[in-house]
Every structure is written in C-alpha cells, then in structure tokens.
C-alpha cells in the first residue's frame, strides 16, 4: 500500500468515524443518563437515511433533507421515550432490551412497507459531487464534507455540553439523575430531550451516510453493533470517549477491511477486548464502582 493509498484509507476511516460519532454520542448519553440500553438507536440512523430519501424526493434539496430529517427522527425519538420507555424505567433491564429489540423490527417493517426492502441509493448534494485532489490522489468531495461537517457538529456539541447551563444539567443528570431532580430540575423533561436529541443526531448520521452507504432497512441493526462497541471503548456517558472511540473504531474497521477483508469485524472486537482488558470503564468512562 502506497502512502497515498494510506491517506485515502485514513480519510475513509475518518468519514466513517464521524458517522459513528454522531450515532454513539446519543447512545452514550442515553446510556449514561437513563440507564437504558436502547437497541433501537441504530433504527434512528436507518430512519434518518429513509427520511432523507423521502425529503429529497419531496423537496428536491439534499440540504433541506439534511435539516428536516433529524427533526423528524427526533420527534419519533421523543414519542418512543414518552410512550414506550418511560413506563419501563423502573423495570428490569431485560424488559427494556426486549422492548427496544422489538422496536428494531417494527421500524424495519414500517420502512419496508413504505419504501420496499431493496437498497436505495441517495443522491448527494450537487455542490460536493466532484472529487478533490489530495497528494495527487482523487478523493470524493462529499466525504471531505462529511468529515468537516461531522467534526463541526462535534465542536458545537462539546461547547453546548461543557459551556452552557443546558449542558451542565445534562452532565449532572448523567452523573446522578435522582440528585439532579432533587435540585429542582425536571429530569423527566431532560430525559425526553436527551433521548430526542440523541435520536436526531443518529438521524443526522443516517442522512449524511446515505450518499456513501445507501439506504436499506437492515442498515440500522448492522451499525448498532459497531456503535455499541464504540460506546464500550470510549466509556459510558462520555462525550470525549464517544469521539475517541468513534475515530479509533472507524479507522480499525476501515483498515481492517482494506488489509484483511475476511477479519475486518474481528479487528474491532480485538480493539474492544484490549480496551476492556486494560480499562474496563472504557477510555474516558468513569471508574466502575
């Protein structure tokens, strides 16, 4: 592999890592705050891609879809939290797992019913349809857009979570939800907001993934496994961990696929196993008690 190939793969890995970050950040905050293992989180990614597909068809604009699809998915997320998950918070984890596992099938069937089961390609924006020369090699402009856009979202999220009052409420809730309520904060509304926000980010990930990875009903359950690995590697409830884990797993899977196609998935499991072996709480998670 030449250095130019290496660079190309690294950029591919970065674009994939950015998609994983948008997915995992919501999952990790939901885990950390609500103690809910939301297996349907990947479905929000899939719904984002299909909402994007529908909105591009309706509006003719990728950019309109980029803005509106996450809103649609966020509303779906809020409804799921209010109607399905809320009654289960005090129940055993297995009940939540069963419910969210069931939601995966529900959402897949809804999408099959509307769009059919086959793979649909999603047109990217005309603005980034070309390619950019980097070190003499052509690299799709759209992927560069995904990288810059995703990292910009990461910066904005970091500013919101670390520098605003809303962010301090979210961090407090992740640390100790009961005590946050004890300070007079309506933690139920925060739960709904975080769940909806996480769903919207997953939806955003789905829309921007569309032109690279297409849209198909099983895409959500496929990426869920990788996203769960990211969360374990990065550490529960940590924004920094989510970013670091996404970038690491994005590179590991991309280089794995390039070098050892048969064992690409194995490599990310090895990375996870090593992290868990030496740091059971993940790279930036709080120490296990």
């Amino acid at each position, binding site marked *: 592999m030449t250095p130019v190939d290496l660079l190309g793969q690294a950029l591919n890995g970065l674009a994939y890592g950015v998609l994983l970050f948008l997915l995992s950040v919501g999952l990790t905050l939901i885990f950390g705050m609500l103690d809910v293992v939301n297996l349907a989180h990947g479905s929000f990614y899939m719904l984002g891609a299909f909402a994007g597909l529908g909105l591009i068809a309706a509006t003719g604009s990728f950019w309109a879809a980029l803005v509106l699809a996450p809103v649609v998915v966020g509303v779906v997320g809020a409804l799921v939290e209010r109607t399905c998950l809320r009654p289960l918070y005090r129940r055993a984890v297995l009940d939540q797992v069963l419910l969210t596992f069931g939601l995966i099938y529900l959402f897949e069937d809804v999408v099959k019913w509307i769009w059919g089961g086959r793979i649909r390609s999603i047109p990217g924006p005309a603005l980034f349809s070309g390619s950019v020369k980097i070190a003499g090699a052509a690299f799709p402009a759209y992927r560069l857009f995904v990288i810059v856009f995703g990292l910009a979202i990461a910066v904005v999220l970091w500013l919101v979570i670390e520098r605003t009052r809303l962010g*301090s409420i979210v961090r*407090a809730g992740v*640390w100790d939800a009961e005590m946050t309520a*004890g300070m*007079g904060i309506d*933690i139920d509304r925060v739960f709904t907001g975080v769940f909806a926000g996480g769903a919207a980010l997953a939806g955003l990930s789905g829309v921007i993934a569309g032109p690279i990875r297409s849209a198909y009903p099983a895409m959500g359950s496929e990426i869920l496994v990788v996203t769960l690995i990211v969360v374990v590697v990065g550490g529960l409830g940590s924004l920094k961990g989510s970013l670091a884990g996404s970038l690491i797993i994005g590179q590991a899977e991309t280089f794995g696929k390039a070098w050892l196609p048969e064992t690409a998935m194995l490599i990310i499991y090895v990375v996870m196993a090593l992290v868990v072996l030496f740091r059971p709480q993940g790279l930036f998670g709080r120490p296990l008690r």
Partner: protein
Amino acid sequence: MLEVERIQTFYGESHVLHDVSLTVGAGEAVALLGRNGAGKTTLIRSVVGFTPPRQGRIRFEGREIHRLPAHRVARLGLGLVPQGRRIFAPLSVAENLALGARGEAAPGAWTRERVYALFPRLRERAAQGGGTLSGGEQQMLAVARALMTNPRVLLLDEPSEGLAPIVVREIGRVLVALKREGLPILLVEQNFPLALRVADRVYVMNKGQIVYAGTPAGLDADEDVKRRFLGVS
C-alpha cells in the same frame, strides 16, 4: 411548616418506615438520631420525593407534597444536603452552585457571593471540578448548593459522616448560624454532640419507628434511650 404524618415507606417489598410522624416548626432545628439502618435516610428520601411513602401524608406549609415528583418538592423550598454529599463530580464548583440556584433576586436571599462569604474555600475552588474537592470541601459545597436554591427548610442527612472533627465543628458553626437566621432545619445525624449543639428538639428512630421525641437536654439525661437506641452512654 413540615409535617410528616403516619407514613409507611417501602423499598420494593421491604417495609422500612412504620407509621412515622414528625414535625419541623417555623424557625426550628430538629435532629433525628438513630443507628445505621434505623430508617433515617429513608425518612428524608420520603420527604423529598425520592422514595414516596405508600401510606400517610407529608405536608409542607400546609400543602400535601407526598405525591409530587422530587423536582416539584425541591421547587417548593425543600433544600437537600444528601447522605454521601452527592456532589456532581463532572461539574465545576461554580456549576454545582448554579445548577439549582433560584430566588437570588429577593432581598436577603442566598447568592453566590453570600455562600462564598460563608465558605471562602469554595470561592478559591470555583473553577475546579467537584470531584477534586476534599471530603470537607464537598460537604461545604453540598450545603452551599442547597442554600443556592433559597430553601424554606433545610434537610441534612449525616453531614458529619466521614469528616475530621475540625470540619464537623465548622459544619456545626454554619448550622447554628443558619438556625439563628430563622431557617428551619431537619438534621439527621449519628453524631450525638453535633445534634445536641444544633437542635431545639430531637427524635430518635429505631427499626423504622420513632422511639423517642423530646428535647436535647431530656434525651441527654435519658441514659436508657441513649444506651438502647444510640449506643452512647
């Protein structure tokens, strides 16, 4: 002010509080004593809405609060300094203080400046993470954080737990000062001298029931109650 009337509280199926009644009057400091596992923390958790009672009533300023969610109870003016302090470790000291702050504009209200004047150490550490503070500093932050909500009654659950004697004296000084200002206090303690120093009235709990109610002097003179329920003599 605060009236707990014949409450029964459960954790799942285990029955923890049996028919517990207790009152805190306006401007009054009340101590609740008892051994580990007597049900003192459960009582506090019942009052603030963390573990609502299954039966009985809790009124605050005449209003029933035992069916309200915890954040509504807090907003009515019950300030909690919880067992184990429960500082938000990922938040800075200033963020911990700001989280529940309200009512700062009223005359004589608790503001950040006023709590910093009460606990100068917190001003020095304002930008530091709550998790980096020492145990004593965390306790001061827990008290300051509750004061920032401008509570109408202050509930403290074992504020002396795990702290050095000099810090316990400091906490005692602050509680006496708060009482002088007229802030009603319900103090759960195992530290008998601290409770005697602060309280106007005392209750003793054992196995989820109130077994003694009276004055600090009366309890101090009652060797039988002290030996049986507090393990002091």
